[in-house]
């Protein structure tokens, strides 16, 4: 009698997907003036899910005008009143959690287990958290006078479509700004459902405007003269273009970008839990995590044993239908990302790292990639330097604490790091020496709205979450 899991598929009946999705401007769903639409794909099947409006510069302008019109009233509203709207939004998110989770999984490809247990609860938590700040802004920076900035333009990525929307929208609204936001072109559906929630919550018209589209839509936001601040989460390449574009303006800017974060495992770590942490660090959300622990630094004395355990653990990962409640790793979000990952894996093989992938089969339809790693990778290899943004881990070794710190910091990025040791003094010494915005000790990928998130160097600047997350949305005098 073999013990196996029968398919346990989450029903999709709860979501109603509009075949043609419009823009959300001034509190209403409107046709794009461009008249153009593009398809969004279910990455687990490769089949189109729906059509999405392609906003052009004129659509963006309409959105900015709506936001500008809504701004004075929204900014003048008491913090308590603004907080009330945010609390209401948070509660509706909780009520409609299953619907949001299923839609997120369909459009993004992440396992339902994650959209249900991680993404959506964190989305609600962010709105709850910043709802709490709305009437306490005068205490956020004691002795200073704070004012909202005006209209903020926000551009978010496809890896956590809803969560990134929450990270951007909740603090902006709490501080009294109005918003024009663009989701990634491959994952527009969940934020459009969020727009329905804004309507249900009675959020005043024009306070949040959603323009869907790709790079050109983003450029129209960045270059719009009546936007006071740009907040961008995405790739470092695009961030360079944005930074140049706003260089000669008075627009404020925050960037939350990529990473090549190191997970350092010392020989005195709790090994079983460290293995689990490394797995979670790199394979969570198919590795599409800006702070993914994509470099594993192992103390030489435990390297062989640790890699062995990692292999065993990886054989137990379940890759497949994201809607199956037992799926651990879902689909890569798009054909383009899938191709990029495969190319980087190929270059890793040609560079000479020891490649490992588990022996199980993965679905041939849709965009799936096996979780994998390269062992004995040198710091000079592209895999140690280039962000893969996929389920690919680069493993190398170190001999001393000093070497571990040196190697972890040997990167143009500086977003996150993990330290694994049961010796407290060593954890503190290492953490203090790491140049990264987020450092986890004996855990990884833990997120909380009260904890600021952001990077150093090419990982960007500005912080999201916590009290720090308010500053980029306030003019402070």
């Amino acid at each position, binding site marked *: *009698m073999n013990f*196996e899991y*029968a398919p346990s598929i989450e029903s999709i009946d709860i979501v109603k997907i509009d075949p043609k999705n419009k823009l959300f401007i001034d509190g209403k769903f409107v046709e794009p003036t461009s008249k153009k639409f593009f398809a969004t794909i279910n990455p687990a099947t490769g089949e189109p899910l729906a059509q999405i409006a392609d906003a052009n510069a004129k659509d963006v302008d309409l959105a900015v005008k709506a936001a500008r019109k809504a701004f004075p009233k929204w900014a003048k509203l008491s913090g308590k009143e603004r907080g009330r709207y945010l609390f209401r939004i948070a509660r509706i998110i909780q009520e409609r959690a299953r619907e949001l989770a299923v839609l997120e999984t369909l459009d993004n490809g992440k396992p339902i287990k994650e959209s249900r247990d991680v993404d959506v609860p964190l989305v609600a938590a962010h709105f709850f958290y910043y709802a709490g700040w709305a009437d306490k802004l005068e205490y956020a920076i004691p002795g200073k006078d704070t004012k909202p900035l005006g209209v903020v333009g926000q551009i978010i990525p496809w890896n956590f479509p809803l969560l990134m929307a929450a990270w951007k929208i909740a603090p902006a609204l709490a501080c009294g700004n109005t918003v024009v936001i663009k989701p990634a072109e491959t994952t527009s559906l969940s934020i459009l459902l969020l727009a329905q929630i804004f309507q249900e919550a009675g959020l005043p018209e024009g306070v949040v405007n959603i323009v869907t589209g790709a790079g050109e839509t983003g450029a129209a936001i960045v270059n719009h003269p009546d936007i006071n601040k740009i907040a961008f989460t995405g790739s470092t390449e695009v961030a360079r273009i944005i930074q140049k574009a706003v260089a000669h303006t008075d627009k404020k800017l925050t960037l939350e970008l990529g990473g090549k974060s190191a997970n350092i495992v010392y020989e005195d770590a*709790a090994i079983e*839990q460290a293995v689990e942490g490394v797995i979670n660090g790199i394979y969570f959300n198919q590795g599409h995590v800006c702070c993914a622990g994509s470099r594993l630094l192992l103390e030489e004395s435990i390297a062989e044993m640790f890699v062995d355990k990692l292999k065993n653990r990886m054989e137990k990962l379940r890759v497949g239908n994201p809607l199956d409640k037992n799926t651990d790793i879902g689909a890569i979000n798009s054909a383009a990302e899938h191709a990029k990952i495969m190319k980087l894996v190929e270059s890793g093989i040609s560079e000479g790292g020891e490649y490992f992938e588990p022996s199980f089969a993965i679905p041939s339809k849709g965009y799936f990639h096996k979780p994998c790693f390269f062992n004995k990778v040198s710091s000079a290899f592209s895999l140690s330097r280039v962000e893969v943004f996929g389920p690919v881990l680069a493993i190398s070794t170190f001999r001393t604490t000093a070497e571990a710190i040196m190697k972890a910091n040997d990167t143009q990025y500086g977003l996150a790091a993990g330290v694994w040791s049961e010796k407290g003094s060593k954890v503190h010494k290492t953490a203090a020496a790491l140049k990264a915005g987020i450092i986890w000790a004996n*855990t990884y990928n833990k997120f909380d709205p009260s904890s600021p998130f952001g990077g150093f160097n090419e990982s960007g600047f500005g912080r999201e979450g916590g009290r720090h997350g308010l500053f980029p949305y306030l003019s402070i005098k």
Partner: protein
Amino acid sequence: MRTISVQKEDGNQIAIHAFPIDEVGANERADFFTKRSVKKDSKINALYLALSMCDLTTLEGADTPGRVKQMCAKARYPVPPEMIEPFLKKKKWGPIPSVAAVCVYPSMVPVAVEALKGSGIGVASVSTAFPSGQAPLQVKIDDTRFAVENGASEIDMVINRGAFLSGDYQTVYDEIVAIKKACGETHLKVILETGELGSYDRVRLASEIAMEAGGDFIKTSTGKVTPAATLPVTLVMLQAIADFHKRTGKKIGMKPAGGIRTAKQAIQYLCMVQETLGPDWMNPHMFRFGASALVNDLLKQIFKEATGHYYYDKVFSID
């Protein structure tokens, strides 16, 4: 990492590693198995398997031959076949399995052996001055011998927690070796009484000592101490078993005992065993549940799957 050293009977020293366990991480990993969704065929399969892994237990001062005989009847046929067979036939499912073993005090071993003759069901006897283990070694050995000589097929001993907590690991090791010797061919389960050890680090160390000393199974609890078995404690022990197997090639069995009352919980344990140790452990020779209340909930769930209805508690005999 801390390493302790114990002396074997032949005078050689062996090193036993105290692998550190991060409590938060272990709890988190154990919680992961509560999220697995076991439905349809895999659920039926799991319910049957769990039932076949149960050790039906009575360990009371008030135990009598009459009570033990009653329990043995339930061990053979957890539910009267005529009550369920028409439904099972319709579904083309096999008969309800009998449990793996009954677990009794040494004095009740002859009664259980007699009652279970020809059934293939094991008779496990607790020994070594169960549950406290606070008796001289000779008494513990005699206790064990009595059970073995009267036909027990399995011995569930307790470790010397007093010695363990005072750091006298040698005594803990020696006692297990001595009881193993008294067991001869009889299977030895070593109860760590994890609820008295105080940390996962110590659960892991006690597991290592028990396996090195010759235990065939490691078992969480006597059922007389709270907390008894939990998912994370069992996980820590399963990982010790996996490492021991990797190191020595020997497969050690696992028995969580106490506190597992529902089919839902049992299935979570099965998922954890499957994903930590793999299919070789998914049978009653390598994994047991020490849980009597569990049997009726498993039956209730099997009835539900077979008939489409939940039957009320009175349908299932108490023992």
